[in-house]
């Protein structure tokens, strides 16, 4: 019986309870639970408090994206506010392209939305089909938050184009900035997503993410007001 030692409570094999000892006890719910419920009720707090709490959560996740370490905050408390804010900012900043060119100008507002959200959904489905363990919304959350470096690079590019003319020097500066932010985005999302994949399929999951941020970076780079 070698596996007796492996069984739990192995040392209690010889303990027995005699029949005349009454087994009694008390099962009751701790009294303090209702107090805990009152603390969690957020119905009576001022609206500013509610909004600020969500904003603080979003801000905390931004910090996690900017300094990507192996933290699980992004995955554990996922939310889609951050991706929505970033998508709206991206779409707004990409407006104002060459107006008189008609449909050959920059992307419309809705096109940016479609590209970002549809791209995220497709990549999430891809990683799930390949056997990933992240849930659908966690994946969307990570991909959305990691657009932050690209959005900030778009802001920088627009400021640069406001200040200076669109010549070769500014183009090379913009190219550098967009490349750096694209690399940062891909690295950040890989740091969050890669752990959830089986090890022999990591490259298969990372490549579509690379393609997604490459397309967004291309849209940012070719934008000229």
């Amino acid at each position, binding site marked *: 019986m070698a596996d007796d030692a492996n069984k739990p409570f192995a040392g209690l094999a010889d303990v027995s309870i005699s029949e005349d000892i009454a087994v009694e006890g008390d099962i009751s719910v701790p009294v303090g639970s209702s107090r805990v419920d009152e603390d969690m009720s957020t119905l009576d707090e001022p609206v500013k408090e509610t909004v600020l709490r969500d904003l603080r959560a979003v801000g905390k996740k931004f910090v996690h994206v900017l300094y990507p370490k192996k933290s699980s905050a992004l995955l554990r408390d996922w939310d889609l506010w951050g991706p929505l804010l970033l998508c709206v900012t991206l779409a707004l900043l990409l407006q104002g392209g*060459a107006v*008189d*060119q008609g*449909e*050959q*100008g*920059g*992307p419309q507002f809705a*096109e940016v939305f479609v590209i970002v959200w549809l791209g995220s959904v497709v990549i999430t489905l*891809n990683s*799930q*089909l*390949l*056997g990933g363990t992240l849930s659908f919304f966690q994946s969307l959350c990570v991909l959305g938050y990691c657009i932050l470096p690209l959005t900030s690079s778009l802001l920088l590019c627009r400021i640069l184009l406001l200040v200076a003319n669109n010549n070769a020097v500014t183009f090379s500066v913009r190219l550098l900035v967009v490349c750096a932010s694209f690399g940062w985005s891909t690295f950040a999302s890989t740091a969050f997503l890669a752990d959830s994949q089986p090890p*022999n*399929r*990591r*490259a*298969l999951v990372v*490549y*579509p993410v690379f*393609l997604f941020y*490459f*397309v967004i970076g*291309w*849209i940012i780079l*070719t*934008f*000229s007001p």
Partner: protein
Amino acid sequence: MTIDCLLQTCSDPRSVTPAVTPGLQLSSVSLHRPGCGDSALGETMASPNDLQFQEFEEAAQLLSSDPGASTLSTLLSPTAGGSSEEVKLDLSDEEEAAQHEAAELLGGQKSTGGFWTFQFYQSFFNVDTSQVLDRVKGSVMPIPGRNFIKHHLRSNPDLYGPFWISVTLAVSVAISGNLSTFLVQMGNPAYHYTPQFHRVTVASVVIFLYAWLVPVALWGFLSWRQGVERQVGGYSFLETVCVYGYSLFIYIPTSILWVIPLEWLRWTLLAVAMVVSGSVLVLTFWPVVREDTKAMALTAVVTIVALHALLAVGCKMYFFQNAAQLSPLQPTTAPVQSLTGSGGVAPDEERALEGGDSRGGAQRGVDMLHRPSLKKKFPDLNRGVGGGHEVESDMWSPEAAAVRPWEQFMREESAGERGAGGGLCVGRMKMDFKENEKGQRVCAKRS
């Protein structure tokens, strides 16, 4: 092998799935599903390898001691006699319960659940990075005698490759096309760079249609030609889609190299790419088609190659136009005044307007109205009208009639004649000058 048994959705968590290494003969693999009765077991007894039965006894013992696990038996070689190792994995029900056996043994019959379940689609993505890279390499270097499907796919077609190769190709063609247009027009001051995003849509639609509809048509055609016996030498739908998808891979580096604006280089690259990917397709489908009549075989092969060539040439012509095809955007040297008395029309616009000779003067005038270049090039069009003050709305006043270019066009068309009522005779509206009873020239509808 009882196919019905394998296709049952046996939701037994204790299913035993043997993994088959490539190269094993089909006859030596035995399969045992506990929930499917003894028929499968009876057939495995026909295998000459008695030790396989013993191995499943061990597996059964392991399962009885720990019902939560599934055992994965790897058969290294059928003749080595029992040199098999067992790997005990904790597999969840949903993940890899039945996809291995169906995938490995029934080339193409992968439906492990209904098509509404997630597992059904997950079975199409059962590939590793190394496998995908191997398949890509096989599509780029076709060796005669090596059938892509038999050699590389090995009864495990996937949808990852075709889908992402199509997406990458659409993106690369659109971006490279945009870059090449920019490079061609770089010295042209009249050219304003536009990202041309609608091209991405066009590219993706065309490529996806090719990569998914043509295999459907080809598979339908092949199935029809072979009648009922589809298993013998025929390819399943997934394998056809897979071959087509992977054969498109060579166009990705080709499209990136097409940015170089040398015409002979582009045609050379196009020829090379067509030869490589066309030969992959031909080598794959020739053994199947060969058994048919000569005429049908040749037709099929020629159609495959022709469609492939059409895609490549079409992409090149639409996305990568060279300098000659982009010539209408020639720069105007100076605002041309009174060229043939037409009051300052830019040469390219005039050429475009002349080209539409069949259209009436009113159409031309309307076209002139919508030229944004007009306002930019001739901002002082109103100078000298009404005392030299600049009022844009004066363009419509009778005093400005002398400089309104569209009216000048209409005047040109009617040879400077006006009807008695002062109106303009516009040929497009089927009106013409006629003598009325008073002998005056008036505009009237053509009889």
